[in-house]
């Protein structure tokens, strides 16, 4: 999670979706994904409707479609996996665009692809409308263990610092004629990684001293309070509620 990278996921704006407290959005997205995953895979229409629900959220949040499409590349590995399924699966064979493939595999591929895509798009919308920092505050609010949230926020803060250190070490290596051509040079790279670890550890100690010096006594003070009202929870429910209705219908039809 590099600082620069996570900043780019965020699309600044002031829409209703942007303004919702992070914990509401987190819960909404999580519930939505769980409902989608629980939907029977042969109710194809249900997935079309889920897509419509997500498209409406994207429209309200003013997140442009090309932005979403570009970020969907994270899904590529799943796509490849899904494409292979019909060919490697056993069971009854069916004709599909002139190819003989496994029927169970085809359904399995559709299942992975449809549910995966909906989950990825929901997460992209969450990241696009919530600053990474605020997302952490939301997790804190949802009573994720404080230590975990602290570690994540340190990662957010120090990713660039450690990345910079790594970059300087690589330049220093290469300035002295080092080229990573094959595995024999692995030893040098491993040594650099060790040095990086020690530097990061020492930095951790210095940061801890700086924290103690400002009165830290083991728990982070709550500085930014992101409280959510009933109205905001209800607004956030606009994502999982229609999904729930769709899923219930889909189940009753099977």
């Amino acid at each position, binding site marked *: 999670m590099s600082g620069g990278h996570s900043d780019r996921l965020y699309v600044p704006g002031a829409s209703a979706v942007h303004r919702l407290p992070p914990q509401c959005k987190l819960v909404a997205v999580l519930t939505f994904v769980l409902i989608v995953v629980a939907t029977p895979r042969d109710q194809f229409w249900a997935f079309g409707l889920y897509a419509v629900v997500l498209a409406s959220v994207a429209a309200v949040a003013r997140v442009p479609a090309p932005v979403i499409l570009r970020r969907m590349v994270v899904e590529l590995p799943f796509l490849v996996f899904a494409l292979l399924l019909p060919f490697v699966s056993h069971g009854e064979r069916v004709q599909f665009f002139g190819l003989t493939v496994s029927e169970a595999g085809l359904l399995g591929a559709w299942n992975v692809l449809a549910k995966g895509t909906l989950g990825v798009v929901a997460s992209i919308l969450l990241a696009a409308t919530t600053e990474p920092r605020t997302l952490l505050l939301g997790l804190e609010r949802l009573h994720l263990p404080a230590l975990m949230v602290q570690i994540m926020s340190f990662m*957010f803060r120090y990713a660039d610092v450690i990345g910079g250190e790594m970059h300087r070490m690589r330049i220093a290596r290469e300035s002295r004629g080092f080229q990573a051509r094959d595995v024999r040079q692995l030893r040098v790279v491993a040594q650099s990684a060790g040095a990086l670890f020690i530097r990061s550890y020492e930095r951790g100690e210095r940061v801890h*001293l700086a924290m103690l*010096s*400002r*009165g830290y006594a083991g728990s982070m003070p709550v*500085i930014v309070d992101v409280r959510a009202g009933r109205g905001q929870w209800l607004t956030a429910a606009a994502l999982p509620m229609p999904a729930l209705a769709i899923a219930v219908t889909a189940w009753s039809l099977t």
Partner: protein
Amino acid sequence: MTSHPGNRAPSLAVHQLAFAYPDGHQALFGVDLTIAPGERVALLGPNGAGKTTLVLHLNGILTAGHGTVSVAGLPVTKDNMLEIRRRVGIVFQDPDDQLFMPTVREDVAFGPANLGLRGDELAERVRHALDQVGMLALIDRPPHHLSFGQRRRVAVATVLAMQPEILVLDEPSSNLDPASRRELADILRDLELTTLMVTHDLPYALELCARSVILDEGVIVANGPTHDLLCDQELMRSHRLELPFGFDPKSLAVPGR
């Protein structure tokens, strides 16, 4: 100056402080240092002299093997720790160590929030501290997006927000370009706060501090007006303190305060 040294306990009183690291290396041998309210004092000394070790004793991060430290009359002991850490504002050398929160606002709020401030009172403290160092406009930025000079100034704000009795700066001018160095000097001068400035930057010490002490090998070897110390070539050379090329303190008038 508005404070009257005679009426109050010294801002900082270090008495016969000695300390050895757990590995047996003795870093301080009976250090004495007194700083009156409102005074700005430079702590000079070569690498490894024990300067950082001394600084870490001032707010109880390290505790004395022998001797005492007290801040505005309050001794540094386990029971007083939170109040001592409020009174002694240490600005560490690397601002990346000091600024560990995701935004400037939260970083400056960290200290006063640990002291129990909340809500408007906390927000006001943060704004005031950032205003004092001219960084109010950057309040919502993440620290890693600031220039080095800006980060150093925000680091100063993080301790100003605790309204310290004494400001302690470890190498404040290191890694700054000349413009940032001058801007920081202007800020420090305008704060009119009791200050202990650890530095190798002798012109900076002369510019900002009327008095200097020299620490070498864990003992205070000199204590006097900065101008006099810098003009004593023999003293400076014997403690590995060198003036930059072309800098002649004798040619400068003694800076007024």
